[in-house]
Every structure is written in structure tokens, then in C-alpha cells.
């Protein structure tokens, strides 16, 4: 089944680039089931296009005219079946990235990502998983720096030792598959750890996160 994707990005050239690269991938022997069903260059346009085309995944630029990527996320927050958002940005600033993920994005990749990685990230977001680039893993480790909670403790403000371990391996550049092999766990288990981290990131009241959110008037 093809993944229907809407590309929200204000630079036409970059949109064209993504389209071309993903198209090129599809011609290779490995068929990548991604179809770009719509494009938008601003917040209002994005909301309209997403409502009209009902994509599975939205590739969302963090910096967007008319309120930024977060304005788009807000518009779909209360919907029963919102599309899944994957944030895409040239910004490496921790607060930008943390803010968009806290607003509901299922992951974050930088624009230097290559086509195969992007296709893989889209497929994973479509499957309900979180996508952690090494950089995002680093930001999250920074934000949750300090004590590690007991494995059974569902404390939102801490990472479990295992989650911490997984994040560090992601930051070191390992893929989920590599990590599974190293920790003798299945890829599915790694994915559930990462999703748990994403949930904690989005729900935590930890003060660094709250400070970021307050600064950006997110709360």
C-alpha cells in the first residue's frame, strides 16, 4: 500500500528536490511506496490541502510563513484521526526541535537527510513509530539529563535505564536494527521504547521542557 504524503514547505526548490529524490528512489529496484498527493507553502494552504487530500503522513517544515509548523499541528490537534506529522527542518536549534515534537510531531529529521533515509522515516511514521534522528536523541538526552528511573516506575519526568540506553545508541548513529542486535531485543521492542520516549517528551512537565515551551508560548 502506498503512503500518501503531503509536503508542507515554503521553498519550492526544496519541494521539487524532495519530489525528484523520492521519485528517483521509486525507479530503483526497491519500490518505495510513497506518493506525494499535495504540496503547500504556508500554514493556511497546508490546512486546506491536508483537509482536502487526507494524507497519511505530512512532511512539515518547522519554519513556515503564517505561524510556523506548530500552527498546522494545532489545527489538527482536536481531530479524531489526524494525519501523522514528521518535522523537517534546517534548524538545529534545540528549542525549535523540542517545540515541534512537543506540539505533536512524530519525529524530526534534518533536511540533510538522504532520500532513502527520508523514505524509511516516512514509512516508520506511517506505521505509528517515532522517528529519532541522532540529533533529536541528543536533545532529548540533554532535556532529560540526570537520574534514571526504575524500570517499573512510570515516572513521566524520567527515562528508564533501557530508554536511556536506546537513546544513547541512536545518538551514536546506530539504526533500530543495529540496536536490537546489540541489546538482544527485537526491532519492535526498540520501537516501543522510542515511542515511550516520545510520549514522555510530549507529556513531561520537566522544567527544561516547560521553559522551552513557555519561551515559545506553547502552553
Amino acid at each position, binding site marked *: 500500500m502506498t503512503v500518501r504524503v503531503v509536503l508542507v514547505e515554503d521553498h519550492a526548490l526544496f519541494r521539487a528536490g524532495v519530489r525528484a529524490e523520492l521519485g528517483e528512489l521509486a525507479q530503483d529496484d526497491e519500490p518505495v511506496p510513497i506518493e506525494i498527493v499535495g504540496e503547500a507553502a504556508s500554514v493556511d494552504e497546508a490546512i486546506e490541502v491536508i483537509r482536502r487530500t487526507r494524507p497519511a503522513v505530512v512532511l512539515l517544515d518547522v519554519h513556515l510563513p503564517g505561524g510556523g509548523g506548530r500552527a498546522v499541528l494545532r489545527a489538527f490537534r482536536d481531530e479524531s484521526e489526524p494525519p501523522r506529522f514528521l518535522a523537517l527542518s534546517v534548524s*538545529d*536549534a534545540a528549542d525549535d526541535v523540542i517545540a515541534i515534537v512537543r506540539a505533536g510531531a512524530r519525529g524530526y529529521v534534518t533536511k*540533510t537527510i538522504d532520500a532513502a533515509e527520508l523514505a524509511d522515516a516516512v514509512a516508520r511514521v506511517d506505521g505509528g513509530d517515532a522517528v529519532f534522528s541522532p540529533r533529536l536523541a541528543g536533545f532529548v538526552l540533554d532535556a532529560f539529563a540526570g537520574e534514571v528511573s526504575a524500570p517499573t516506575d512510570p515516572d513521566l519526568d524520567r527515562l528508564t535505564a533501557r530508554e536511556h540506553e536506546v537513546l544513547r545508541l541512536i545518538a*551514536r*548513529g546506530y539504526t533500530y536494527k543495529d540496536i536490537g542486535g546489540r541489546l538482544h531485543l527485537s526491532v519492535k521492542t526498540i520501537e516501543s521504547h522510542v515511542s515511550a520516549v516520545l510520549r514522555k517528551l510530549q507529556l513531561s512537565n520537566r522544567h527544561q521542557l516547560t521553559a522551552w515551551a513557555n519561551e515559545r508560548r506553547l502552553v
Partner: protein
Amino acid sequence: MAGWGILCDDAAVTRRAALPRFSRSRDRVLAGVAGGAADRWGVEPAVVRAAVAVTSLAGGLGVVAYGLGALVSVPPASGAARSSPRRDHRRELAIACAVAAVLVAARTVGLWPGDEVMLPAAAAAVGVAVTWIPLGTTTAADSRRHLARRALQLAAGIGLLIAGVWSLASRTGGLASVGASLGAIAVVVGGLAMFAAPALGRLLRTLDDERALRIREDERAAVAAHLHDSVLQSLVLIQRSDDPRRMATLARRQERELRSWLYGGAQPGDPATLHAAVAAMAAAVESDHDVRVEAVVVGDQPLDERARTLLAALRESIVNAARHAEVDRVDVFVEVDEAELTAYIRDTGRGFDPAAVPDDRRGISDSIVGRVARAGGSTVLQSTPGTGTEIELRLPRSRR
């Protein structure tokens, strides 16, 4: 009165070295006359100062005597004047006393226009003085208190001034006419304002617009200068280059530079923290060795000796990977926790058998393992031919 004790000791020192002529004291309030006289007579300077003050206020004799003393004495022996933070206040107090003494003397002698004129005038003068007394420089931390004190000071000063002038005007009987004139002036000014307001408003707006335009122009010029020096130069280089790898390298370096400029990551001069230093080093290795370096840093610390050691070993490891692993990407992860610095350098390239490295290849053993070991740290090298290499560096943090 600890302060006086210190003054006495000083006076004693001066006394031993006393010249036959009457010399003014370096430990002075006004000109040092009272201090000098006290030295000469061998009494406490405070006694002489009190005597001068009392006789000044009661009849003005003190002022005359002080002036005479200043005339007949010689300056103190050379040497830096004693600096005391209290000096300023004492001096102001002394000047105030002298002025008061002169006024009292003038009143006694009969050179006096009458209390009803002089008291309001004095109030007005004090008001002006209070308004202009500087509060001294302050740090940003207590600027709010400073502001409050300044407001209080202004209010007190202006209040005194207005009270003085008002009272003066009412006593000289001119208040009624002043009121009428003020009314007339208000009417004229109001009329003029109504007449000229639109023109004035336009003028102010034009000035504002011009200022905004100038600021915009300056900003535009700054952005243009930066883009010219960086982006345009790189684009020209890319056009002239026919090697795709070189083009990609130039574009990557430019992207990093522009990004740090746009998002404020730029550090003027040498980086001061490990985080910034790793970022700068990664960018440099990227452009020198044609490889993408994904550097993630968690935590941070100042760039001390240990951090520099780690940085050097880290750089060597990345360069090794770039040279030998045949990859286009190296992942770097640096973590700073309470006890130690940890760094991982990973590539998914060719890999090698660490045991098979010939002894004459000193790169890894000297620049990485040896360097880290000398600083009290450890290195773990894992490599499998065909699947890649990971180097782990650990260094205890220096205690601060």
C-alpha cells in the same frame, strides 16, 4: 568612632615629620587647614574642626579664621592624598557648613534682603542641588532600586524648587499677575499647538520613517555584506569547480556557516566550551576530508585541559575514519556527565583487524590511545572488517 581613630594615627605620623612652618594636612575635609593646625598644636583634628564649625555658624569668625589659615599655610608634603570613600560626603558637608556660615555672617553684618526672600531662595537652591546630586554608578542588579531613589530625589528636588519659587513669588506679591500671564501663555500656546499640530505630527512621523528606513538600510547592507563574503563567494567557487565532491564539500561548509549565522550558533573567536569546540572541529574536518560528520553533544563543560585532550583524540579518530573507512558519513556522540567525558566515533565502513595493524603505523596508538591514557582515560576500539569501526574514548573530568 573607629574612623576618628584612624585619622588620629595618621595625624601622629604627620606630626613626627612636622616642618617648622604650618603645613596643611593631607588628611583633609576642605583644604586641610584644620587638620594642619591640629598637627601643629598637637590636638585632635576633630576638636579644631568642631571649633571652626561652631565659630562659623555663630557669627562667622570661623570662616574668617579658616580663610586666614589657608592663606598663611603651605601645601602638605607631596604624596597621594588619602583616599577614603567617606571623603566625598565629608567634603560636601563641609562646603554646606561654609556656605551656611557665610550666610549667617552676612545676616549678622546686615547684608541681608530679609528672611522672607532668602528662605524661599535657599529652598529653591537646595532643590536644584538635590536634583543634580549624582547617585553614582550602579550595576544592573540594583538598577530598579537606583531608579526608585532617583525618582524620589527628583521629586524632592523639584518639590523644594517649586515650593521655593512659589513662596518667593507670593511674598513679592506678583503671584496674581503671574497667574494671569500663565493663563494668557497657555491660551497662546494651545492655539499655536492646534494650528501647528498636524504639521508637527507629519514632521515627527517623517523623522520616524527616516530613522526606520535608515535602520532597515543598515541591516540590509550588513546582510548583503555577509552574504557576499560567504554565500556568493561559495557559489562562484562551485561554478568554477567541476569536481562534484568538491562542490558538495563547498556547499556543505557554506550551509554550516550560514546556519550558524542565522540561528546564532556562531562563536566569536575560539570556542569556549566543549560543545562549541566539537561543532567547530566537526565542520573543519568535514571540509578538509570530504565526509559528513554527524556530531551530537549531550551536556557541556568549559574547554579545559582534559576537554582539549578529548577533542584532539576525537579529531584524530574522525580523520582516521574519513581517510581509511571509505564512508561518506561518520557519527560522533560526545557525552558530558558529572564524572567523565565520553566520546564515540562510529563509521559503517571498511573496518580492519586491530591486531593486524603494523607497528610502524603510529596514528591510533600515539594520537588516540596514548594521548587519552596519559590524561588518565581509556580507549576501546571495536572493528570488524566489512561492517565498520567504533572507537570509544573515556576521560575522567578534571575537578574544579
